[in-house]
């Protein structure tokens, strides 16, 4: 491939990725009710979202679940990464393979298996069931992210702390945690994004009393192109964009 055709190809793939998102973003400011023509710049669709109480409730619910699930997942995933990196124990390999498999296992299978489990245990579908399922969804990603970071740094730093009399928990808290903080933070941010965006699992494990944003967006999207959906999607995209950028900044800054 010539240098120019290579550049052109890269450019075209990025166009493929970003043109639809750009169109969605631009149309969200379109004053016209239908997306057939440009009717002038307007923020009215964003204002309409703010007046939609059901939507705001769903957004708040999603935010609550995402914050709690991301925190729990970070705790579980971080602990798992420490186990896998520092200790050797029977079944360590099986544990590692299990976590890797979880990161690629189809979401829909996770959704229906949790639904069956919750119903079999007669748990009411709602905040708690979502929290458990989303924690299970996110924790493997945190474990993999933190583990990748732990592979990079020196085991002897902890041994030094231990030799100086720190307990294992203290050594991990004061030496390992600060060193792996960027990966832990990135893991939290990515978990938050995963939870805020999840449709496949939430569809199954939430009940009518507890509506979440992605499921609500899905029911809106199925009705076709609407300007208020453009605005809502644009907001969701902006949220993901800023979180991913933040995660990147955190991990890249510390590495230098």
């Amino acid at each position: 491939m010539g240098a120019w055709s290579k550049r052109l190809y890269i450019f075209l793939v990025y166009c493929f990725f970003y043109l639809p998102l750009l169109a969605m973003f631009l149309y969200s400011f379109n004053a016209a009710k239908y997306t057939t023509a440009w009717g002038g710049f307007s923020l009215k669709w964003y204002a309409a979202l703010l007046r939609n109480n059901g939507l705001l409730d769903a957004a708040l619910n999603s935010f609550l679940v995402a914050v709690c699930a991301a925190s729990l997942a970070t705790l579980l995933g971080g602990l798992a990464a420490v186990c896998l990196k520092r200790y050797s124990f029977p079944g360590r390999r099986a544990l590692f393979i299990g976590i890797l498999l979880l990161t690629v296992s189809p979401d829909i299978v996770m959704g229906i298996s949790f639904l069956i489990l919750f119903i079999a245990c007669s748990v009411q579908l709602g905040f708690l069931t979502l929290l458990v399922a989303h924690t299970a969804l996110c924790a493997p990603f945190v474990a993999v992210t933190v583990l990748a970071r732990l592979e990079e740094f020196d085991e002897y730093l902890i041994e030094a702390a231990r030799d100086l009399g720190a307990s294992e928990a203290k050594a991990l808290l004061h030496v390992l945690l600060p060193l792996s903080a960027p990966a832990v933070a990135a893991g939290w941010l990515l978990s938050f994004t995963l939870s805020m965006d999840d449709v496949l699992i939430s569809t199954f494990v939430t009940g009518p009393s507890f509506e979440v944003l992605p499921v609500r967006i899905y029911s809106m999207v199925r009705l076709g192109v609407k300007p208020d959906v453009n605005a809502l999607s644009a907001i969701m995209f902006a949220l993901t964009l800023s979180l991913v950028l933040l995660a990147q900044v955190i991990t890249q800054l510390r590495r230098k």
Partner: protein
Amino acid sequence: MERVPSPGASRFREASIAGTWLWLGLFALLPNLVLLLVAFLDRDTVGFFIPSLTLDNFRELFAPVFLGVLWDSIRLALCSTLVCLLAAYPFAYALAKAGPRLRPWLLLLVIIPFWTNSLIRTYALILMIGAQGLVNKCALGLGLIGAPLELMYTDFAVFAGMTYTFLPFMILPLYASIEKLDPGLADAAKDLGAGSLRTFWHSTLPLTLPGVVAGCILVFLPSLGSFYIPEILGGATNMLLGTFIKNQFLVAKNWPLGAASSSVLTLLLVLLAVLYRFTSQRAAGGYNAPLNARRDGE
């Protein structure tokens, strides 16, 4: 270095190992075992399933209805996986060979769609391929077509949606495996007289096969399971596997059949995971290791 575990260390160690096992047991193993169990139970219109063992649900998977769903799903998912692979490989290769200052930025531009909500990206695609979409507007404006193309609610729309949504999931694992390649290997092959094609076929491709398989897992399985893509872009023409499973749980209330049909996905995951292990062992042992050993010996 020999570690002398102190009582404090072992307490934390035991607790964290136990916690991790508990997590995997409760959140992964238990739900999947229950799912497997329900696949062998009888359906019940009131309580979702009744405790009597049967193979009927798996027998129903061989009925023409389900085979038709499965065939349509696998055909579309395979097409999008193949197109993603063909489009992503040269892209990931170019990305891995880009200058060190530019590369993080180029990579970031792939990571952003990777993390953006797939549902929203699928929706954004309607703005492109819908009857009033940009593709039709541009083609009409340029005089390429006389009437708007009917792209939406077709198999093509679903295929385009899968390709658009999952392309970043193919690029990133491919990039990771290509970036790790030792450029000396390709040079060595060239020095030994191999052409570009031969070098690619005998050296580059086998070494990056783990990335290829990982990318295929990340595109193929979600293409089969993500019900929102065919439901948004395909309308109600053909039911695909994801929608079939979802309907058994939320509409038809035939949980045992839904559980049994989801076993197709789990089976495919296991097969692909084994393939991944095989290719990565081959890439690490069969090619890389002897060369590295020789270099280390010198």
